[in-house]
């Protein structure tokens, strides 16, 4: 035979973000972070880790405008990366996307995450964590988030805030302006009077022009399940969680016979539970996942997540769902986490 050709390029495999997420969920359930037992090895590992982290932080700060945390802060947060989009993710799942050569300094102080936008534009998609405050410092403005999506642009002497979902509170750290609540679809900016920038401040609150996202004004959606799933993936990684959820809902409601409907329902449940804080909606989506794909490889994951959702929704069916999972999957990958649920 002749020299081999690489025929693999003609094989189509679904490598969607949903699948990768599902894979990671299962791998995480089966593996734990490895901490070295020996103190000497641990010390060496920690040294290498810290050195690497410092090198990365230094490199990144130079290349992308991410600053180190201030040395006196009790810092413990991490900004990770979603490789496919470059969006950075904090340990709690909140995302930060930098634009216009933005420079952001991140600190985690106690129960508060603080970010200082030094320059440029940053888009925040913040996961609501009860008791945790998410604060963005910009030019003469502190923006307090309570679980939403918003964009902050810092210019030479002003700050502009656009709220895409939820609402934020904008405070003037000098107290010259009253605290404002800016709702979804509104923008806020603090211009400066020409005669005396330090004292004369103008404030503007205005409705946003038509959003560039397709969620509000443009209901036109691609028709095929494949296109809908791709659009949902794109919306999700761009931080447009509600739009992603709507697209996934469209797939499972209008394409129920499509083999991907179950996966769409599963991903919808995850989004509702993890990002949209809609536990009851997540239960409904996981129920639908099991109905749509009773024999799918991710059924076990759907059942485990359903237990999680029932617990968060304080639904009395939680215990029953937990027992059903443990009976069905006595050696399942989620046994440990499911066992810990519905104890109250």
């Amino acid at each position, binding site marked *: 035979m002749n020299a081999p050709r*690489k025929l*693999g390029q*003609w094989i189509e495999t679904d*490598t969607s973000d949903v699948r990768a997420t599902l894979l990671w969920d299962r791998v995480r359930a089966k593996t734990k972070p490895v901490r070295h037992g020996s103190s000497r090895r641990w010390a060496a590992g920690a040294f290498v880790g810290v050195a690497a982290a410092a090198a990365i932080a230094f490199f990144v700060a130079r290349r992308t405008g991410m600053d180190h*945390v201030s040395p006196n802060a009790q*810092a413990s947060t991490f900004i990770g990366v979603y*490789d496919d989009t470059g969006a950075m993710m904090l340990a709690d799942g909140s995302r930060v996307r930098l634009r216009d050569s933005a420079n952001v300094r991140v600190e985690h102080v106690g129960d508060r995450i603080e970010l200082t936008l030094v320059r440029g534009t940053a888009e925040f998609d913040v996961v609501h964590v009860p008791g945790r405050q998410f604060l963005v410092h910009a030019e003469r403005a502190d923006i307090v988030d309570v679980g939403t999506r918003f964009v902050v642009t810092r210019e030479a002497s002003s700050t502009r805030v656009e709220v895409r979902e939820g609402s934020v509170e904008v405070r003037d750290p000098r107290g010259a302006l009253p605290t404002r609540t800016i709702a979804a679809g509104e923008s806020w900016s603090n211009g400066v009077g020409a005669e005396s920038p330090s004292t004369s401040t103008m404030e503007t609150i205005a409705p946003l022009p038509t959003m560039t996202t397709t969620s509000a004004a443009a209901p036109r959606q691609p028709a095929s399940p494949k296109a809908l799933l791709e659009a949902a993936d794109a919306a999700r990684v761009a931080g447009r969680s509600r739009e992603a959820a709507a697209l996934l809902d469209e797939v499972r409601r209008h394409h129920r016979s499509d083999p991907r409907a179950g996966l769409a329902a599963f991903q919808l449940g995850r989004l509702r539970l993890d990002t949209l804080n809609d536990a009851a909606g997540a239960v409904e989506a996981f129920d639908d996942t099991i109905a749509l794909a009773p024999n799918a490889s991710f059924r076990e994951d759907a059942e485990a997540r359903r237990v999680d959702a029932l617990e968060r929704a304080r639904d009395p069916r939680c215990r029953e769902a937990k027992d059903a999972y443990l009976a069905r999957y006595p050696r399942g990958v989620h046994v440990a986490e499911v066992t810990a649920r519905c104890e109250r």
Partner: protein
Amino acid sequence: MGKSRPALRVVAPSPERGHSSTGGPSDAALVVAARAGEDWAREALCRRHAPAVIKLSHRLLGRDDEADDLAQEAFTHALSSLDRLADPQAFAAWMRTIVVRTAHKIVRRRVLMRKFGLGPRKTESDIDTDFISREAPPDVHAELHAIYTLLDELPARERIALVLRRVEGMSHEDIAEQLGVSLSTAKRLAASSDEALARALSGGEK
């Protein structure tokens, strides 16, 4: 005074060696952090390499619905044994080897079970090659169809060698390395599976 917290780690997109054009820290940096017990680094490694691993798993087993189990087993093994990776920057190649060897183990187990009459034996109608792109040239389509129809007939190592050689386009040296066999064994396996494929393509007898 509260307990001191670990230092901030900041990671952002950057085109570095050891990582795709999508940006982010290098594989070496992620491996070092993962070895230190950082869960985010393990996740980043898994998510970054998931598409390649799932694709390879699918191609090795010939079934998309079995690819997830193989990928899961391979990642579980890799992330539990990162200490054995000599060159952290070579994570992708190391991961590929783990996938290949895990696939070999799975196939061998399946063949053994079938010998004892425990596993299902596929019939011609069970073989689904819908995953071959409709845009594939006819000769490519025919070859891939023949490969995936033939797989279940071959011994485990020949089967893996056939996919590595014909589907992945690997050299004998790479096949030897991936399977952990000598070069001469790799050549023998490839020759044997090539012969079987040639027979299948010509519609001939075994």
